[in-house]
């Protein structure tokens, strides 16, 4: 492999990682135009709770997250395979959702994986297919302040 090929792969891997992280911060800030910009115009998603074209799915997410006081999408384990102008990526996420319910505050925490198919566009890498695999979820009361 030439230095040029090595550099290209590093740059592509970093750009894909940046894109997946940009999605997480944009969702947590509820910056929907920025969330939408992570996807191709014709992207499709299956979030297990809801599925369809990206606009339908983002509508579900926006309405669903409105019930929470705050959310934090924490990303970890990440792998990506780049083949020319397409890529697949798997990213682990532990998503914290704080909600107010009868009896006080609670945290819904979901351990899941984003399974993405990506494409290189003139504007950079974009997600064209996103599936979510849910590994576990919990609902825990928030412990009282000390």
């Amino acid at each position, binding site marked *: 492999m030439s230095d040029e090929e090595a550099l290209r*792969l*590093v740059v592509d891997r970093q750009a894909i990682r940046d894109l997946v992280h940009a999605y997480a911060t944009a969702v947590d800030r509820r910056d929907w135009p920025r969330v939408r910009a992570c996807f191709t115009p014709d992207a499709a998603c299956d979030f297990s709770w809801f599925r369809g074209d990206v606009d339908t799915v983002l509508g579900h997410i926006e309405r669903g997250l409105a019930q929470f006081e705050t959310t934090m999408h924490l990303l*970890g384990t990440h792998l990506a395979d780049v083949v020319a102008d397409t890529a697949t990526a798997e990213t*682990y996420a532990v998503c914290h959702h704080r909600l107010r319910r009868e009896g006080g505050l*609670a945290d819904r925490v979901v*351990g899941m994986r984003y399974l993405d198919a990506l494409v290189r566009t003139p504007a950079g890498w974009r997600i064209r297919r996103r599936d979510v695999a849910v590994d*576990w979820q919990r*609902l825990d009361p928030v412990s009282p302040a000390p």
Partner: protein
Amino acid sequence: MNARAAYDATLVRDVACRYARGVDRKDLDLVASCFTPECAYEGALGRGTIADALATLRAALPRYERTMHFMGTQDVAVDGDAARSETYCVAYHVRPDGRHFTVGVRYLDALARTADGWRICRRTVRTEWTREDPASLPG
């Protein structure tokens, strides 16, 4: 850092994540492909060779409905055909009754460049903390 060094660092970071994917998908062949055959291992799965550790892992996996090895902080240094990496992991283990066993560990790895790519040739696992949580609230 030149392009080649950055490329190697990316591949070294990938090895820890491939290990996570292999364990969590119960794909022991993928797990084994992260190590050299003679890799030395010391940690939660015992002390000896990687083959011993993988036998222990194989026996332990059915205890859990699901595992998630959530890799975070990674500190990687590449020196020619050798590398070292330290990877933080919060490993979630879901028991069949819904209880969660959660472990905070550090993987301290020495890696070697082989004909099949980067492989871990010595792994030490340091468990920093564990906790057991009851099944969560319904809903």
